[in-house]
């Protein structure tokens, strides 16, 4: 009896360096460079309206990307994320204004609170599928909003909560951050946006995220492969809710006034979905692109003065006057028309359009190359 010959060992291929799953130097470098450039913006941009635009864009990026985790990757189209946004905003503001608890603790508690709320809401609504889930998620958010309106003793109801001031944050003995002006909010919003986009990256490339995507593609098939849909949908929702609540807290601290209709209204939920639809659902870059487009569009129509501060138009420019006089109340209308156009003509969002366009160019180049070679042969 001969001893079995061990199979020849295949030479171990040197795996490329990976800092984390899905890591690739070019795109990682591009992201780091973009973030570094953005971090430098306040050094050169001092005009308050321009910083305001950036802050609104970052908040929109955070909202859209947060929704993307559960809506884009796990495929659960929640149209009730205003509930988490509102829980975040209300927890922070109530702790600060009614109990004098500083917002850096408040934000943490707000996130915790939203995660707990998300577990409860998930337990109720994840039993529903498709359009029923959408309806259920709307109903839950409306219950939260009506509750906040009704229990005046607890939330001050429709009267809302006005922020009187944010205490300075003391980090070391001689380093304190005073939350005055736009700059601290710029960095806070940028940091949040970066964190949420990073979370999307992990969801796209890690095993946990693969589970989410499997559930999105076919819940029953995923289930039969041993991926518990209830558990994983709840995890996706918890991640999403945590970042949404964080964005809500930051929004409340920045805008300094909240009431149930502003932070828990159906519009808030819809906007989060629209950001993703316009940019491209279930992609990392999609919500970022969508947030830029939507925020620039709506903020410009609402208050075009930033164009003046950016030096693009003079103060007397007829364009500014036209926007202010004629288009002042139309921002939602334009917004709506844009979304209708995107859904009808670019169902994969702006990113999808860009992808199609580059694919077409590449095909044409390839075809051109073939044609150029042909005469030489024949």
């Amino acid at each position, binding site marked *: 009896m001969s001893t079995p010959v061990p199979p020849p060992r295949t030479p171990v291929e040197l795996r490329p360096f990976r800092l984390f799953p899905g890591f690739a130097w070019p795109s990682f470098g591009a992201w780091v460079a973009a973030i570094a450039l953005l971090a430098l913006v306040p050094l050169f941009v001092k005009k308050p309206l321009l910083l305001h635009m950036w802050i609104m864009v970052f908040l929109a990026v955070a909202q859209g990307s947060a929704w993307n985790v559960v809506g884009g990757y796990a495929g659960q189209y929640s149209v009730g994320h205003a509930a988490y946004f509102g829980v975040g905003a209300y927890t922070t503001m109530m702790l600060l204004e009614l109990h004098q608890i500083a917002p850096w603790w408040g934000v943490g508690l707000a996130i915790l609170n939203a995660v707990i709320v998300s577990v409860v809401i998930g337990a109720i609504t994840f039993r529903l599928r498709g359009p029923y889930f959408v309806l259920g998620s709307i*109903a839950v958010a409306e219950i939260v909003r009506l509750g906040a309106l009704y229990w005046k003793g607890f939330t001050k109801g429709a009267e809302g909560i006005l922020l009187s001031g944010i205490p300075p944050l003391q980090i070391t003995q001689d380093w304190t951050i005073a939350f005055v002006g736009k700059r601290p909010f710029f960095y806070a919003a940028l940091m949040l946006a970066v964190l949420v986009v990073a979370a999307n990256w992990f969801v796209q490339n890690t095993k946990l995220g693969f589970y989410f995507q499997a559930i999105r593609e076919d819940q029953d098939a995923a289930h039969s492969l041993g991926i518990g849909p209830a558990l994983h949908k709840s995890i996706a929702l918890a991640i999403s809710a945590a970042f949404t609540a964080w964005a809500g807290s930051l929004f409340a601290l920045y805008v300094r006034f909240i009431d149930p209709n502003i932070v828990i209204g159906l519009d808030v939920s819809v906007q989060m979905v629209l950001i993703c639809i316009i940019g491209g659902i279930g992609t990392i870059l999609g919500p970022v692109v969508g947030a830029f487009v939507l925020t620039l569009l709506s903020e410009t129509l609402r208050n075009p003065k930033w164009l003046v501060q950016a030096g693009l138009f003079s103060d007397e420019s007829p364009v500014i006057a036209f926007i202010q006089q004629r288009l002042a109340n*139309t921002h939602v209308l334009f917004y709506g*028309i844009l*979304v209708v156009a995107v859904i009808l003509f670019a169902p994969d969002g702006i990113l999808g359009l860009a992808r199609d366009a580059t694919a077409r160019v590449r095909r044409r180049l390839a075809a051109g190359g073939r044609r150029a070679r042909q005469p030489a042969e024949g």
Partner: protein
Amino acid sequence: MKHTRGRHGSHMLILQSILSGILVGGVYALVGIGLTLIFGVMRVINFAHGDLLMLGMYATWWIFTKTGIDPYLSLVLTAPLLFAWGALLQTAFINRILGSLPQNQILLTIVLGLVMRNTMLLIFTSDYQILTTSYSSSSFRLFGLSVSQPLLYSFLVTAVITAALYGFLMRTDTGQAIRATAQDREAAQLMGINVSRMSILAFGLGTALAAIAGALLAPTYYIYPDVGAPFTLKAFVVVVLGGMGSVVGATLGGVLIGVAESLGGAWVAGLKDLNVYVLFLLILLFKPSGLLGKSRM
């Protein structure tokens, strides 16, 4: 003595609430039937339904202020007008996304509603408009209960229209074709039914029903661009309660919701809407096929 009178009073209050609940519920039923018809035929949940109702209100109000035609009479104008609008919406927008993700369909209708709302906001501003008829605030007395005149009229109109619609769906060839499309789109197509025409018809009918409901509510409601949103959500409750796609269910659901809301409002005014949503969630969770089970139409 005082005690017995108090008890009698509370009985009357409950009876009164139930009565006005039924009357209002008739209008909810009308809104719900439109939604269920659209869902049944196209499997599209129309989130712009309340906004179509709002358009009906504005059309009625506009005709009334310009010409003085009674809101119940001007139905003969507003209903066909909004039918045409619905048919246009169907051909221009909804039809293009029938095959796409249900999520995109939902968003499209949400945004179409947004556009309609904001267009009206631009034209008529956000001011509350009031349509006052000679009978807007008058009422009949019936066994010690007061019956609001406009509500009673609207309930009667609702009853007639619901009966007519039911007859149309059950007795005519076109109605049968609509039902066949709702039952199985592909099979209906194979049987030679023009499915896309039935869709246009269904969306037009649904829109007209919402508009009629708007017209019926106009004499008793403030009219403003955002008036539709609560009706959209209420229509969902009605439809889910009765079973998606079931006309009889929606009629029943409408009356039930009207009564539930009216009774809830009699106790705690602020909790009126909250109750409706909680009820909605409970039905979604425990009886998702609706109270009438799986019946369609």
